[in-house]
């Protein structure tokens, strides 16, 4: 599905990601864990073409997508739930969701089905479909951002710290939903600081520290890894 080879990413003269290799198989959920400033968001921005200062290869279904612009990459079947949600605050919930598929040729005729799926996943969005997005609570806006991403029938769903700024009960809820989404025909790339919750969703994980991959393993081995336990789980 997604294969990243020898990726270097810089902001101007400052290199943030060093020689990174990563791959995601079909229908696999992969986590990237790491502290603040490790380069998780930078990696994601590089994948979806929001950063251009890139060396290396990013292959999506065998095709190199480095150098394409964001809207072209999104149309190939990658959807993003950004850290800051990036909704359209003056539009209603439903309008936001519909924009999620309106500009994706492959998802346009599935709008009604996808809308139904999103509403079944997050019933609150159906209740509030006429509410203006900017007036909703942070947790609801996060759900809307996830819903909007799902509207495009993505093959790869990227989530950038979905737990950030949410109260613990909502985080648990959201990760339950991610497990439901996993049952659909979609791969997931989850960047998280909340490793404890993240481990409940993923099949395999990478640990990213100071712009380098320090560790890659299955979820089982990661949970018992000493470094993970000490630095991320506080055991």
């Amino acid at each position, binding site marked *: 599905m997604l294969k990243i080879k020898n990726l270097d990413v810089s902001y101007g003269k400052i290199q943030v990601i060093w020689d990174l290799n990563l791959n995601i198989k079909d229908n696999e959920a992969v986590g990237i864990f790491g502290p603040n400033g490790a380069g998780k968001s930078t990696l994601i921005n590089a994948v979806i073409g929001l950063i251009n200062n890139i060396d290396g290869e990013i292959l999506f279904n065998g095709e190199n997508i480095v150098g394409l612009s964001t*809207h072209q990459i*999104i149309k190939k079947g990658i959807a993003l739930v950004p850290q800051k949600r*990036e909704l*359209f*605050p003056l539009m209603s919930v439903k309008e936001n969701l519909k*924009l999620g598929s*309106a500009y994706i040729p492959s998802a346009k005729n599935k709008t009604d089905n996808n809308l139904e799926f999103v509403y079944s996943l997050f019933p609150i969005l159906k209740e509030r479909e006429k509410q203006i997005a900017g007036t909703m609570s942070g947790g609801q806006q996060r759900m809307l951002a996830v819903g909007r991403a799902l509207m495009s029938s993505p093959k790869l769903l990227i989530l950038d710290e979905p737990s950030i700024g949410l109260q613990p009960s909502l985080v648990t809820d959201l990760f339950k939903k991610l497990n439901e989404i996993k049952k659909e025909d979609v791969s997931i790339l989850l960047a998280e600081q909340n490793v404890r919750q993240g481990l409940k969703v993923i099949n395999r994980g990478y640990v990213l520290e100071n712009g380098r991959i320090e560790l890659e393993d299955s979820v089982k081995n990661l949970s018992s890894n000493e470094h993970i336990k000490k630095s991320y789980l506080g055991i």
Partner: protein
Amino acid sequence: MSFSLKKSYRLLLLLILFMVIIGIWRPNALLDGLQRGSLYAIIALPLALVLGILGVLNLAHGDFLTVGFYLIYMLYSRFNLDPLVSIVPAVLFLILLSGGIYLLTVKNVLKDGHLNQLLITFGISLVLIETINIIWTSRPRNVYTDYAYSAIEVGGFRFGTYELLYILIAVAVLVALQWFLKNTRLGQATFAVGQNPKGARIVGINVNFVYLFVFSVSIGILGIVAGFMLPRTAIFPGVGSPFSLKSFALAAMAGLGNLNGILIAGVTLGIGEAVINSIPNYGGWSDIVFFGVLIIVIISRSYRRAR
């Protein structure tokens, strides 16, 4: 930056009250002000759109209007084309010209600070003015058509019919613009980009294309304005420049992004100016009143916000 399509009922009521009072006191000034104000509004609308979506204040806005004037004038003097017919080629030419200028200049400063954007559009403004000066010299020119001076008389009160067209065009352009934003694919994309460019990118909207589209079509609208204004306006290379400032003033007065508000603000200021002009020997005060009203509105708005 965002822009809303909200209805401004309260302001509209106030404006109607204001118009009724002026209408009783000085009916001529009311008509003069309505057409003046509508003109300001249609010229300001595209500027406000570019300001709201791209976040760029285009100081060359009025000079693109001048380019439209001279193009239509040339078609009139060389091929004897009626200015209203020339609107079509003028709009097309302005779209191409401004699209080209956008790609060569403005596009590259979108991510820079506002100062760079102002400098580059100021530069474009000077280049346009001087190019026109070289080709057509600074001699004032005008176009004569019969219909522009037709008048009708109602109840012993005589007024020109042609100016009334300005009001219709202003309303038509506003309605068309709102319809476009609400009901078309590209319009919704434009609306989305205006609210959140990054959000628009990640739903697959080609934001760079939307920017190009908004910039060039906004300037294209000026071609329509130029065609209707030319029969009643003597043109010279600097004729459009004051409109850049006045348009920005209207956009600021309406509140950034409030499209309906621009029509209301335009008509208010237009009538204000016309009333001053109708008082003998005080015509020179009209600009002072225009910007005086603007300053009062902006101060009162920031005062309300501060409370």
